[in-house]
């Protein structure tokens, strides 16, 4: 019975001129999005790989130099373009792509691609994820809104119910039939994404792609359930259409903006200037109630006592290396404090956004999609933290070299390639899928809640389909 209903729905949809037109537009847009995204990904990936190699060779070939000079020369960490970025570019355009890893200073990522984009970039980017999150649900609601409402208006629903079919069978049958129509559009996209992914990165990102496929299929099922539900309860097809259009517009364009603005109002981030000044003030003040000068002096006295000397020149080590280490110690604590506060402010904004996703399942899908595609704030942070971890190890290596291999006052000390090799070059390690999923707790919960809500309401609506009063 359900299969019969589904077959009829599928056949009817295939013959619907609106669906055919929408499908053609959809395919054209997706093709454009695909080609541009794939080309951009290829170009970005090549560029960043090249740049990382270039800075690595600059590091290795910097010649003989004082290690602290090399520390200030530093290295650069470039955020690579992850394979699934071609599917969902997430927040990447608005995050810096490179971090300068230098002495005494933690820099935040610079070189935001959005700064070089046209002003119309704020209208949104036609990515494959955007098409699946925003445009496909619109097509869906345009084909699903008359499912019950129009049949009720025309009297056909009465005839169908009079045949002895239950409301539940009818609802499920229409759901399956319309799903088949939508899958006809979605599955080729998913298939091509898998092919492209496989050819560029082998099986490494396969699990991510599977997760994303399930996510988007789940989202389509939710949207279809919602459209059928509204159609089942609306008095006329026109009312059903208007309600669904309002829900679509609010959920995709209004709620995310309001949520983002409210986040900013509730938890503002400091300006670069304010952040810099606060850091400078704290660096001058020192940590643990000690000024940097006091801390250095204390360490000097400890070293003099340890080595039983009375001047720096008599030390068997270069105290300058120790001083650089203290300065790094202080700056690490100060930068951690301020960067943590900054991240906490941003996290509070994101929390508000996640909470607002209760009103819009699309927002929840957007968050999960970004996480799994490796283009979220979480991933940017993972990149930045990884780079910072490397920077600290790099500085420790260089400071240790100065301390142990030279003497105090020996400003002519030089190291060479052996030290640069020992210090190593920055490498990016993408995080595991589990870590990304762990950050998706809230949005996935929202999707589960929406599933229960739509399921429960659909069940109630289906039971009432055969009733007039």
């Amino acid at each position, binding site marked *: 019975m359900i299969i019969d209903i589904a077959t009829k729905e599928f056949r009817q949809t295939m013959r619907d001129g609106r669906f055919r037109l929408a499908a053609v537009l959809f395919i054209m847009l997706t093709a454009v999005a695909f080609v*541009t995204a794939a080309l951009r990904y290829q170009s970005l990936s090549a560029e960043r790989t090249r740049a990382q190699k270039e800075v690595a060779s600059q590091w290795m070939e910097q010649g003989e*130099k004082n290690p602290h000079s090399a520390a200030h020369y530093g290295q650069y960490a*470039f955020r690579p373009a992850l394979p699934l970025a071609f599917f969902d570019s997430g927040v990447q355009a*608005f995050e810096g792509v490179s971090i300068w890893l230098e*002495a005494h200073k933690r820099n935040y990522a610079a070189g935001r691609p959005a700064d070089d984009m*046209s002003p119309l970039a704020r209208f949104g980017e036609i990515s494959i994820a955007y098409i699946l999150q925003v445009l496909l649900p*619109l097509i869906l609601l345009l084909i699903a809104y008359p499912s019950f409402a129009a049949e009720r208006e025309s009297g056909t629903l009465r005839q169908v119910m009079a045949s002895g079919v239950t409301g539940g069978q009818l609802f499920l049958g229409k759901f399956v039939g319309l799903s088949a129509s939508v899958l006809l559009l979605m599955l080729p996209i998913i298939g091509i994404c898998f092919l492209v992914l496989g050819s560029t990165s082998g099986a490494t990102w396969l699990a991510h792609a599977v997760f994303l496929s399930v996510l988007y299929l789940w989202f389509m099922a939710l949207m279809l359930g919602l459209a059928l539900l509204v159609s089942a309860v609306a008095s006329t097809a026109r009312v059903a259409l208007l309600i669904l259009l309002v829900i679509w517009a609010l959920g995709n364009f209004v709620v995310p903006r309001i949520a983002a603005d409210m986040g900013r109002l509730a938890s503002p981030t400091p300006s670069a200037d304010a952040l810099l000044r606060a850091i400078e003030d704290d660096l001058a003040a020192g940590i643990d109630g000690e000024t940097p000068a006091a801390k250095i002096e204390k360490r000097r006295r400890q070293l003099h006592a340890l080595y039983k000397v009375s001047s720096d020149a008599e030390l068997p080590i270069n105290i300058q290396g120790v001083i650089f280490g203290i300065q790094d110690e202080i700056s690490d604590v100060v930068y951690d404090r301020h960067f943590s506060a900054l991240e906490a402010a941003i996290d509070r904004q994101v929390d508000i956004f996640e909470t607002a996703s209760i009103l819009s399942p699309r927002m929840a899908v957007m968050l999960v999609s970004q996480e799994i595609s490796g283009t979220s704030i979480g991933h940017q942070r993972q990149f930045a933290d990884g780079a910072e971890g490397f920077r600290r190890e790099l500085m420790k290596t260089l400071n240790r070299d100065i301390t142990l291999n030279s003497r105090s006052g020996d400003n002519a000390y030089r190291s060479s390639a052996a030290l640069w090799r020992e210090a190593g070059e920055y490498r990016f390690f993408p995080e595991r899928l589990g870590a990304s999923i762990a950050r998706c707790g809230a949005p996935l919960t929202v999707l589960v809640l929406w599933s229960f809500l739509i399921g429960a309401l659909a069940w109630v609506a289906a039971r009432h389909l055969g009733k007039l009063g």
Partner: protein
Amino acid sequence: MRSADILLSELTLLRREQIVPWVLVGLLLATIFAGFSGRMIIDEQRAGALGARDEARVLIDSLKQQAAAGSETACSPGAVAYSVLSMPVSKTATPLEGLAIGQGDLLPDTYRLSARGAHTFLGQTDPENSLRLVSGNFDVAFLVVWVLPLLVIGCLFDVVIGERERGVLSLALLAGVSAGRFIWHKWWTRFLLLAAVTTVSIVLAAWIQDPAWTATTAYVLAGWILTSIIYLALWCALALVVSTGAGSSEAAATRLAGAWLVFVILFPAVTNLIAGTVMPPPSRVELTATLREASEQADKAIAAERDRWFFDHPDLQGDMNRRAYYLSVARSEAGIEKIMAPLLEEFAQNARDQQRVIEIMKYLSPGTLTFRSLTSLSGSDGRQHAHFRDAVVAYHRDWREFFVTRLETDAPLTVEDYDRLPTFVAPQIDGRQLILSLSVPLLLMLALTCLLCLLGSRKLRSTHLIVGTYSPGRG
């Protein structure tokens, strides 16, 4: 039936259709929220700019006093230029810029420059929640460009077809009222209602910005209202044409929703895609690598004996003379700038090229056209920022020249020199010029609106309007 009677009946109908009053109230409240939200963003930016300026003034006063007392650092042009003083320069506040944030949350409104190369400050950005940047701002421009057409669709999609479906149109004709007059009165009632609420909302949102009420402010506000009303009229006219030609009210709603999707969402996004593809920006990644190489080479060439780390640890320079040290810094920076300046200019040129592409393509979509007009009025479309940036780069040259000249001639800084420091003059906004620059786009939108209204009028005279097209099923 008199026109006034038709209008009055229409107003009563709209009042009874509870959804319309609620929608209008919703628009008003949303605009007020958007106004406040925009105001807070701009206030924050301005507070930051003012704070930075005050701080710089305090520092300069302190340096002046120290110079008077003969302090070595305060009298050293090199030390002040390269180690101590960074000068904040801010763009002129545009009246009502909180109504359209546009690029305002991406492009800095203040640069902190020193005598070091322009590359050290031109790339400055504030740390931001990138998720918020991706989502966009809930500002008045968003409400006008995105939401207002949806309200128009909701109020007008069935202005003709709905009357035919309800059988009212044929009754009106029998009463001796022409279809055109009957429908136009309905149309005008709804348009004027929407226009009134839109105008009041914009004025309220403007008042919330608490601007200085100058001639420029008046021009900008007038521009906002004019642009929004013409955009509203265009969508109302489109709704009329679609409603007249559609077979059912659902078909009309679907077609109008499709038009919204194409003109407000897809066309602008495609325009952005084309601008980025035809005029791809230079690579920041390559810029970084080039800067790094340039810095290294400059250091090696200019100061073979001096390690770069002295730059951050001038106290460790040992025997090196302070003047000689800063002279080498100045030469090093000059060398780097020589390599970097053309690369930075490529970015600026690319931005100008992209703006040109958008200026041409904006005419394909009323959504893009209106967005550009509104952000232009609020100074957040990137073009005013480009003028500001160019002014900053020119000022930076003067600033650096001021100190480097003294450094090279070994002339210490005096109290008088501190009074003669170069002053930044931000490019001013000419409100009248702004309005004039919008005249072509607005006139084009108005012309299109009139064309659509003419088309609607013609369709209203057609007999198909009453009986619809033939369908055998209707027996």
